[in-house]
């Protein structure tokens, strides 16, 4: 079963606008990773944020983590048509196993 849930399920914006996606999870985590997936094949790693971190940046990407609310957000600034993809969060739990649990994903469409 999926632990994480992304919100919204789908998002359509104009090129140049910012896109915000949210991820909520249920159990305590060690870290959370965001991935991008094009055309239903391989996942591309974007950012890893650890449970003791609150915010990380990478280029046009900004990730926040609120462990008290069990939620994370991914912000893509100045979006481009090439950002069109599905975005997933994956949580690494503290339960003694090292599997990562993925959410259901947000399908982002950036219109040129």
């Amino acid at each position, binding site marked *: 079963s999926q632990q994480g849930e992304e919100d919204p399920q789908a998002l359509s914006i104009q090129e140049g606008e910012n896109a915000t996606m949210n991820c909520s999870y249920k159990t305590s985590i060690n870290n959370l990773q965001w991935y991008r997936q094009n055309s*239903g094949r*391989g996942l591309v*790693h974007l950012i*890893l944020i650890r449970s003791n971190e609150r915010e990380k940046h990478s280029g046009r990407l900004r990730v926040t983590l609120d462990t008290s609310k069990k939620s994370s957000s991914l912000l893509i600034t100045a979006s481009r048509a090439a950002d069109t993809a599905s975005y997933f969060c994956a949580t690494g739990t503290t339960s003694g*196993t*090292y*599997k*990562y649990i993925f959410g259901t*994903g947000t399908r982002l469409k950036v219109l040129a």
Partner: protein
Amino acid sequence: GAGVSQTPSNKVTEKGKYVELRCDPISGHTALYWYRQSLGQGPEFLIYFQGTGAADDSGLPNDRFFAVRPEGSVSTLKIQRTERGDSAVYLCASSLNRPPGNTIYFGEGSWLTVV
């Protein structure tokens, strides 16, 4: 290698047949994962290896599914008596040393279609 390599990239098989899917992780990565992804869904955890041993196989759906990693590098996911519901993309990933806290890198996946 440069990345996680999976073969075949596409496989069509008849219901009831046996299938093997291969994963070649990034060189030096001791952790290896198998996930399954159905259309419109997120990846679903199947099994995790640390070295040669399966550290967590709680995601394998039933005893038709089995995975091995005999030398701690290449892994094979084996599916017996395939069913149409097994149709999905099977994703392999690897990471350096022991997670959590390490980035996991995914291959392009093997698309399995059972007809």
